[in-house]
């Protein structure tokens, strides 16, 4: 919903004051909107999730996998994003897609063990890997969906079932196609990164801005939570053309603090379901 000039100025006034900070839905600066998540409902995908935010945003995610020769295929993640009401080549969609695919690619290459045993999460044998296809469908979109998409990917990946390998892992010497167990499945040992959005208005910093709030925010900061710490990508994004003031180091520090505070709780909530 596009706000009028008066509505914007009213909203901004109530959000910019440090002492009388008041969000339109009465939340705290570090409080999320409630979300509902359903998982594992698409029978033909390896993993799926559907997230419903309180403002009506609805996102459906399906994760499918394919076994590929990783010496031939470089990209082990393919992200397809469709947002209702936006063209696929619009800056809004391409920017979200680019952030998501860069995040997922870099995090999936992440390895806990360094050294000779090092292998990526998706690696199956020495020759073959799983390739993930993440299809994201934003059915209705009432606020910047990046954060919710990352939650949905997290839940979908938590429930993603991959076929269990029963052939040998070392297939460099002996040419052998991977053979899978008939019905036993394994889950992916990977915690997907969570992306948080923090908005700045004057000196105030608050998490998870709603659509109306992004319309009056100066800048928003994207922060990622991975492996229990703040991680990249960290970058700014402007979600309106009207308010373009700069920000200071204090804003960055405060937003890192608020994400540090929120992220474990969000993670716990997502795990619980």
């Amino acid at each position, binding site marked *: 919903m596009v706000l009028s000039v008066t509505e914007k100025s009213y909203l901004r006034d109530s959000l910019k004051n440090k002492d009388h900070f008041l969000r339109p839905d009465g939340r705290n600066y570090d409080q999320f909107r409630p979300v509902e998540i359903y998982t594992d409902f698409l029978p033909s995908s390896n993993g799926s999730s559907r997230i419903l935010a309180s403002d009506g945003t609805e996102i459906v995610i399906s994760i499918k996998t394919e076994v590929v020769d990783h010496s031939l295929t*470089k*990209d082990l993640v393919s992200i397809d994003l469709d947002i209702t009401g936006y063209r696929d*080549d619009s*800056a809004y969609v*391409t*920017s979200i*897609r*680019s*952030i998501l*695919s*860069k995040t997922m690619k*870099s995090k999936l290459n992440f390895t806990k063990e360094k050294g000779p045993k090092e292998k990526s999460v998706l690696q199956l044998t020495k020759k073959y890997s799983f390739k993930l296809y993440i299809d994201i469908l934003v059915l209705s979109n009432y606020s910047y969906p990046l954060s919710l998409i990352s939650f949905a990917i997290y839940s979908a990946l938590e429930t993603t079932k991959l076929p269990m390998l029963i052939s040998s892992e070392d297939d460099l010497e002996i040419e052998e196609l991977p053979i899978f167990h008939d019905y036993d499945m394994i889950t992916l040992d990977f915690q997907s990164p969570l992306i948080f959005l923090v908005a700045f208005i004057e000196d105030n910093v608050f998490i998870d801005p709603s659509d109306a709030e992004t319309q009056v925010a100066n*800048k928003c*900061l994207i922060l990622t939570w991975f492996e229990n710490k703040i*991680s*990249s*990508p*960290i*970058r*700014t*994004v*402007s979600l309106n*053309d*009207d308010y*373009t*003031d*700069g*920000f*200071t*180091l204090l804003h*960055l*520090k405060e937003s*890192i603090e608020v994400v540090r505070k929120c992220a474990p709780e969000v993670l716990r909530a997502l795990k619980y379901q």
Partner: protein
Amino acid sequence: MNVQDRRRLLGPPNARPVAFSKVLEEPTEISNVSSNDKALPYMKMGLLTNCNGSSYIESGDDNLMLITSVYGPKPIRGSFTSKAVLTVHLENSIATANNSDGSTDDGKNFNTSDDYKDLSFFLKNIFDSVVQLDKYPKSGIDIFVKVVNTDSANTSNIPKLLQMCCNGILLGLVDANMEISDLVGIGIISHECCVSFIKNGLEMCGFWKMKDEDEQDIEEIVGKCKENYLENKYLISSYLNGD
């Protein structure tokens, strides 16, 4: 392209752009520049005549060359806008030429169109904060940045690219005599992180960090970027004053 080519600017549909074959002989190395002092970027304003403002910039240490053209303010039709609409288009002619050969990107190279659009979006966000958009109602300002040359090894150095783009656009806007509130600049710290500053480093208007590196405090990152920004700003302002 979704806009009809009513001006016949694009030629017949089966026309193919001129492509030059690759230079085979190795260019002779000129190494007069001592490695100690950093090669300064070469800057030039107003090279193009068919736009309102333009700039050409060549970074000193790698072979990054950019041409920026600024069009506008020109009327836009349709819905009423009380402010100018700014658009930034960043394109890499080399990357697209390579891709059309069928060569796949090696996973590290940075040349998918999505990523360029994302960079354009980031640059637009930066310049939204400095261009005095409300002085140009009902208008559009279009900025085109074209990467004409780059060392292939350096295509993944996004912060450097962003910094040079930012300088190029800035000079283009000054050449177009567009009202801008500050000489915005980007300070880089590594191959993965950069910060854009305004007001002599008092405020930031953009932050970019796409990959994790060694543990670094945010304060340290900003501080180092600020030093780099001030160096860069000094270059720009001394160029503008000397011109």
